[in-house]
């Protein structure tokens, strides 16, 4: 069973230690939210775990293989990675972008094998973008583009998914739609690690929260146990009221 494991991982860039001694595991069938204020080291940590950034110490493995030396193709068939979205270089069609999710299976855009074409079609159907199939990327709204990227990740049919702020810059409705897609993926047996800034959204969807501050994991556990008013005050510097899994932020401290 594929697992992503970080073991006492640390990252140093230009002499500054951005991630200290970080350990966590991502298994199939669970949705884990990585939370923390800006500059907590979330993105760097993810990149280091995936072997995309150099680590200074510790280990990270995917399905038992060291991610620092793993072949990118092998990694891509085990784990889909959605980095913070960047503008696309060319106005490609939606179908071509989703088909890039099949890159690690040797798919050629424009003439997909039937297995690739099927995976692309069902990912587009799952994300409700089939009607956008031949639209150009530069004509899409932010919400549509976010779903296109989700479909791209799902098209690879990987056991694991890592997404860095997949719902940033989306309106509330699209935030919920994207989170629903990820939750469905987890329900079908996938394992997802998602960086979120909306604590309420994280508490609602995630099975487990990893709280990060100053490059360290501060706390880890189910929302009911780790989501507290004092934690929000000390980590984010906000005054909040918590009622069950409802979070109401009243202002900065």
């Amino acid at each position, binding site marked *: 069973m594929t697992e992503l494991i970080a073991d006492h991982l640390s990252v140093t860039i230009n002499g500054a230690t951005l991630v200290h001694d970080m350990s966590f595991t991502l298994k199939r069938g669970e949705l884990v939210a990585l939370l923390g204020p800006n500059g907590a080291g979330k993105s760097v940590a993810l*990149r280091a775990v*995936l072997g*995309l950034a150099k680590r200074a110490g510790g280990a990270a493995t995917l399905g038992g293989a060291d991610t620092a030396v793993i*072949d*990118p*193709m092998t*990694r*891509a*068939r085990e784990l*889909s*990675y*959605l*980095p913070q979205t*960047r*503008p*696309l*270089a*060319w*106005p*490609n*069609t939606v179908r*071509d*972008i989703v088909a*890039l*999710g099949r*890159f*690690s299976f040797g798919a*050629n*855009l*424009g003439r997909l094998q039937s297995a690739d074409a099927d995976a692309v079609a069902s990912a587009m159907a799952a994300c409700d973008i089939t009607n956008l199939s031949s639209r*150009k990327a530069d004509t899409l709204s932010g919400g549509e583009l976010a779903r296109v990227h989700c479909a*791209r990740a799902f098209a*690879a049919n990987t056991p694991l998914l890592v997404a860095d702020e997949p719902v940033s810059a989306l309106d509330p409705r699209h935030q919920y739609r994207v989170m629903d897609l990820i939750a469905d993926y987890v329900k079908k047996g996938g394992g997802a690690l998602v960086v979120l800034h909306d604590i309420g959204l994280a508490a609602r969807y995630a099975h487990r929260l990893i709280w990060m501050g100053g490059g360290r994991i501060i706390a880890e556990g189910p929302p009911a146990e780790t989501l507290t008013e004092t934690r929000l005050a000390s980590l984010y510097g906000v005054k909040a009221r918590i009622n069950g899994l409802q979070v109401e932020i009243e202002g900065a401290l």
Partner: protein
Amino acid sequence: MTVERLLVPGLLLVGVISVAAACLLGSTPLDPGRVAAALLGQADAGDMLVVWQIRLPRAIAAFVVGAALGASGAALQGLLRNPLAEPGVLGVSACASLGATFALYYGLVGISPWALPAAAIFGALIATALIAFAAVRTRSVVTLILIGVGISSFAGATMTLLMNLAPNPFTLSDMINWMLGSVANRSFDDLRLAAPFLFLGLIILFATRRGLSALTLGEEAASGIGLNLRRQWIAVVLGAGLATGGAVAIAGAIGFVGIIAPHIVRPFVSHDPARSLLPSALLAGIILVFADIGVRLLPTNSELKLGVVAALIGAPAFVWIAARRRAADD
């Protein structure tokens, strides 16, 4: 979709027509029957000479050079995710012709006929490697293009210096040929020397073209879907260096065709850099063959250089493409 399927066969057909037209047209009038007979080896010695020694090698040289520059341009644009990247703009052509000029200036060509293509390719590889090295340090493609412009100017200045110091008028006129770009008086022997490098470059570019599609998403996501970034960079740097160096060894520096051809092709292939590679190569070849026919037919006192004509058409097109880009595209 149907247009895309017809694109490559259509361009191949036009390519054959363009080369045939180049064999038919010239200062000595030859009717199609005599040209066909000469191509089949059935004509008299004079016709054979005109077709096999003068027109056909020249037309094929123009086509092959165009194809190398078109494919290099399309590949560099895919790699750098910018439609303005091209061997000429990035200074690769200029460095290659500087290499060729060095070989001529120091008489290396007298030592071995391979010296010229080797020197041109060496120059091209230095330029592509510099661009790649700079790309690791800067994330901005605009900065990269400015570095290319700098490399280009420096190579041009060094070349002018060598021309200043040229030992005799023959060397000087050879140098001007390589600086301005021309396929006049090329023989099949010239082609044979540069072609292996040029085709090796094209093969490398075509073999790794899938990675260019992946780079559409940006480097981090491309690596996430399974692209080995380092290998992709090396392949394009090597492929574009070899192809451009080979092209310059045949014809000198010919600019802008590597921008124009991919720009025209892209809408027909859903803007996919991988799929634009082959049609860009074919179209750029066709453009140069027709431009060269134009150069030969224009009634000027001394023949125009192909590179000059290409720049006269290409530079305004470059400005136009650059001006239409949105600032957000950086």
